[in-house]
């Protein structure tokens, strides 16, 4: 796997949480997350709210400092680098944020915000900046007339296009897309997704696509990693993971997506109870308290992410013990 553009191994992020008068406990937002993205490929990171998706994305880009693990960009270790060194690598890896308006400084016209990375990293000569900004605006489907406008004067979709243009300004090879369309309405969402797809083809970008929307994921992603309480519980090619899920959590996620037609019937697999708190999570399989298939053995042995075949792996203890030929269909 040396041909990966981004390689993450054992990434962890823990936050101390005050509890009681003196005590501190740990909130585990990401635990031993390992993933890799090849150049030009899309890896989707899916999971429910609070599963640690955004934290993983921010730790990879060093917008937050990870508590442990390694991140390699294009074979170069960046985990230990000081901020001043990371800054030099930032042009290669950029992020598109979930809330387009909040990610744009309200006091500056959007053209200046897009120009910022251009002159910070000397991407184009000073005299060319204006021309390049207009070019970037065109690239994301915005007219020249928007250059001088302020973020609040644009619609949500336009704001997100500005966010994308700003991310593209430094000619990155990797984009972390942190739920880029979840704040937009459905028609605009489709436009932005198409734009992202076109841009990927045109610019040979690699995407780490963070999302909770499996329909969107199935349209955009080559591979999927499912995150639950900071742990990856299943990875594999998108079709396989979504249509033949191994892990009960993935099954529950898939069965929670709306069906295409009212008469369509499908089996509902529902998890009971609230999501388990990421503060002091269960020691072994973290899904045990909510899993409809859990057996006593599940909370006794360590749940490890194990390969099932060349492309897929899962963390489900029962699956690893009971599956035959990659098929496992328990009824209770």
């Amino acid at each position: 796997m040396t041909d990966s553009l981004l390689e993450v191994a054992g990434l962890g992020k823990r936050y101390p949480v005050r509890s009681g008068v003196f005590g501190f406990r740990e909130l585990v937002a990401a635990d031993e997350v390992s993933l890799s993205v090849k150049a030009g490929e899309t890896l989707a990171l899916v999971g429910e709210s609070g599963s640690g998706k955004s934290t993983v994305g921010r730790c990879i880009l060093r917008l937050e400092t990870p508590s442990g693990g390694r991140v390699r960009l294009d074979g170069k270790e960046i985990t230990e680098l000081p901020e001043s060194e990371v800054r030099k690598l930032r042009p290669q890896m950029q992020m598109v944020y979930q809330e387009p308006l909040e990610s744009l400084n309200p006091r500056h016209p959007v053209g200046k915000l897009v120009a910022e990375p251009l002159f910070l990293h000397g991407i184009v000569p000073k005299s060319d900046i204006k021309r390049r900004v207009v070019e970037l605006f065109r690239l994301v489907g915005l007219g020249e007339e928007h250059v001088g406008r302020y973020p609040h004067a644009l619609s949500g979709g336009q704001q997100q296009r500005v966010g994308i243009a700003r991310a593209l300004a430094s000619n990155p090879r990797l984009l972390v897309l942190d739920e880029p369309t979840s704040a937009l309405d459905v028609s605009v969402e489709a436009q932005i997704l198409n734009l992202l797809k076109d841009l990927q083809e045109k610019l040979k970008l690699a995407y780490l696509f963070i999302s909770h929307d499996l329909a969107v994921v199935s349209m955009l992603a080559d591979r999927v990693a499912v995150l639950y309480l900071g742990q990856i519980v299943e990875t594999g090619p998108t079709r396989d993971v979504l249509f033949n899920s191994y892990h009960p959590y993935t099954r529950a996620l898939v069965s929670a997506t709306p069906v295409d037609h009212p008469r369509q019937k499908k089996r509902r697999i529902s998890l009971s109870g609230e999501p388990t708190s990421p503060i002091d999570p269960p020691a072994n399989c973290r899904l045990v308290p909510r899993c409809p298939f859990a057996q006593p053995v599940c909370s006794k042995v360590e749940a490890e992410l194990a390969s099932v075949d060349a492309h897929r792996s899962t963390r489900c203890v029962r699956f690893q013990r009971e599956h035959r030929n990659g098929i496992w269909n328990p009824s209770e």
Partner: protein
Amino acid sequence: MAAVAPRIRANSRALLHWCRRNPVTAFGFGIIIGLGILGLLAPLVAPYDPYALNPANRMRPPSWDHLFGTGIFGEDIFSRVLYGIRIDFGIGLGAVAFGLVAGSSVGVFAGYYGGKIDEVLMRLMDIVAAFPGFILAMAIAGVLGPSIPNLIIAIAFVNVPVYARLSRSRFLVIRSSLYAMAARGVGASDMRILAWHLLPNSLAPIFVQSTLQCGWAILDAAGLSFIGLGVHLPTPEWGVMIGLGAPRIISGQWWISFFPGLAIAITVMGFNLIGDGLQDLLDPKRW
């Protein structure tokens, strides 16, 4: 060049529109700008030399020759009030400028870096703020001696904690904003984030506070001069003039104190009216 005229016309139309929608703020601006112009043009407008004494013409009530009457040495109150604009506006704006720069620098560093720096700086500010403002200003002005620069320093010093707290609280909020993170994401340095991204977003409430503070600074300056710790005679400062006339009110010569007092009241009101409307004016979303 040809494009300038229509642009000016468009801008003045926008200004007129704004004035109609915010008559109170516009009124405040009108007062302050009007007084400012009067102060600048004082040598042209004032009918007499503000320092000229005329013992033969002492304590005359307001008349056409002396609009605001004459003082206890026969000086023309109207001319002195006009020249007083220069002194009092100068002290007010100077004190606010010093206080603003010093206070918000403290607040910005405390708010952005947090931790021990924050703790030390803000406790120092608490010490300053623990004294009643006017009393502390009295002490400082008393130690430094009566002069205009000392008066400015004394008033500015007392106001430092106000700006420090305000800018710190603002910075604490916007430091963790998503656009600050996004700026780091595109590769901006700490200094750049501070200066280009955070500072412009923290200024609006500080400016609002400083216009309100302008009125108070003038009031403080007049107060200190009134009790003899500020500017001294024969400088045409409003507080001094009030102090001079105060014992005469009871004997019927009310105009000696009344007109400088009126000038202070109108000025403070003007600044307060501006302060109230400025918040709205500085919001980028309204443009």
